[in-house]
């Protein structure tokens, strides 16, 4: 890894990281408040016949604190916070430099393409890790302030972070693979967004259409469920599957990027 490239990549993201990190923290703190404030209301709605599945979201639910934590990380807002780095920054990292013409000058230095890829990838994972940590920190702070910490095993929260890093690592790895495969930012971001969108669609579809809940198994989001982890039900298969989802695009990128012809930018 090139420490200088790593530092510079994080430097480019510094303002975004500060703003998104603070907003993610605030969002994380807000979600347990919904749970404590509205759980009785939701329970009442179900008693009068309101479809329970409509009060769930993805693998989360507003009837338990763990379920609320899951919603906190699966809500479109949370997807947006982390996706800014896992998709936006990752897909633009190499393709953006290529499009702007700055990759030329970088690769004139004694930096191999693999080293560049690894340095940028680790920097993006750090940005994702900070955002995710702040989101979870907001949740933990709020849970303790609201006095509902006894409902979950807080010591499992670091494992939630690890699981989250694997999920978003899979999306970042895919986006970076797209980034090293295209000469322009547009196709790389488009393909990465499509990958994220399809996964999200499969996860959410089963929520609203219970007959199609089998589609959730094909979504990477389904394999990140904080609610189950904080209640001691971590499934190692989830971690393994997400690990594979990281390894495949990483191998692709490490094989394809050094072999690509980088013609002069238009």
């Amino acid at each position, binding site marked *: 890894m090139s420490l200088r*490239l790593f530092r*510079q990549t994080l430097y480019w993201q510094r303002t975004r990281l500060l703003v998104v990190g603070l907003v993610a923290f605030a969002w994380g703190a807000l979600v347990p408040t919904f749970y404590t404030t509205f759980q009785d209301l939701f329970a009442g709605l179900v008693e009068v016949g309101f479809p329970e599945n409509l009060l769930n979201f993805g693998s989360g639910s507003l009837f338990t604190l763990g379920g609320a934590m899951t919603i906190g990380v699966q809500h479109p807002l949370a997807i947006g916070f982390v996706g800014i780095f896992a998709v936006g920054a990752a897909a633009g990292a190499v393709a953006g430099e290529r499009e702007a*013409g700055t990759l030329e000058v970088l690769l004139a230095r004694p930096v191999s393409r693999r080293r560049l890829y690894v340095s940028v990838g680790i920097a993006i994972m750090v940005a994702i890790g900070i955002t995710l940590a702040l989101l979870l920190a907001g949740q933990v702070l709020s849970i303790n302030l609201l006095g509902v910490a006894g409902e979950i095993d807080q010591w499992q929260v670091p494992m939630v972070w690890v699981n989250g890093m694997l999920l978003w690592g899979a999306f970042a790895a895919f986006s970076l693979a797209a980034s090293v495969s295209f000469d322009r930012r547009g196709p790389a971001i488009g393909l990465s967004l499509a990958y994220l969108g399809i996964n999200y669609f499969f996860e959410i579809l089963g929520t609203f259409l219970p007959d199609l809940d089998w589609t959730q198994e094909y979504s990477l989001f389904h394999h990140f469920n904080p609610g189950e982890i904080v209640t001691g039900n971590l499934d190692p298969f989830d971690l393994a599957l997400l690990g594979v989802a990281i390894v495949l695009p990483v191998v692709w990128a490490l094989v394809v990027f050094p072999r690509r012809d980088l013609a002069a930018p238009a």
Partner: protein
Amino acid sequence: MVARDTPHPGLSTEPVIRTDRLTKHYGGGLHRPGHGSGTIRAMNEVSLEVRRGEIFGFLGPNGAGKTTMIRTLLGYLHATSGSATVLGLDVVTDSVALRRRVGYLPGGMATYGSLSGSASLDYYADLQQREPVRRGELAERLQMPESDLRRRVRDYSRGMRQKLGVIQALQHDPELAILDEPTEGLDPLMQLAFYEILEDIRAEGRTIFMSSHYLSEVERICNRVAIIRAGHLMALQHVDELLARRKRRVTLRWRGGTPDLSDVPGIADVVVFRDRITATLSGDVAPFVRAVASPSLVDLLIEPARLEEVFYEFYAGEDAETPGGAA
């Protein structure tokens, strides 16, 4: 000032760049009627050597294959066939190691607009892992004061960006500088300063490989020149040798009558118009001078052969067979 007239004493025959039948084709497979095979032959079996301590000019119009050659040497492109070494290192297997010792100025260089000039140079120097020992001197000679380097690059004019590009390519005192259209965007004064910088670097035993489509520039500063056309190497010679083969144009004014030039070796294309006689002269100039040394001679002009004429000769039949376009 003219580099080729004052060769560096340490000029050796040790090749800094050596290519052996280096070939780069793009695409292929797709066949469209009337469009050839679909393969773009950007570079075809180019073999050349660039020696240590010389300024080597790589000439050709846009699309001739100059940039393809440079990008293959630096590992951006992978050769279809053939091989190349730079500073004795293989361009494929030792690409990273050779880039540590090379400075590169890409054509139309882009850099980060949000960084200041000095921050950009620091970034590149850090990645180069070599001290930017020449930065101060280069900035001074190219008139890039600290106040300019503190400004963001997005506020730079085209010429200032080019100067920044030259500094980043040379600031770490590379053994070999590969410069793609280096004077593009520089004003005449800065071009002059740039030529002097190149000459000084060469005098220290460094090697410069530069592509250009400015013939006067190449003629002025390069020791040797290669002319490339449609990916094919058309000529590779010392500039002086290349020019010596060419015909000089002579013009003389003669008082009363016409001098007899029929016995002068190398004289041709004689045209007489009133008191003015024009002709072309190849080879030794002395017999001609002896023949016209007379009280009847009013004026004499012997124009040196220009690289431009050589270049145009190689490109004369361009519309005929052109093996392929190039990047």
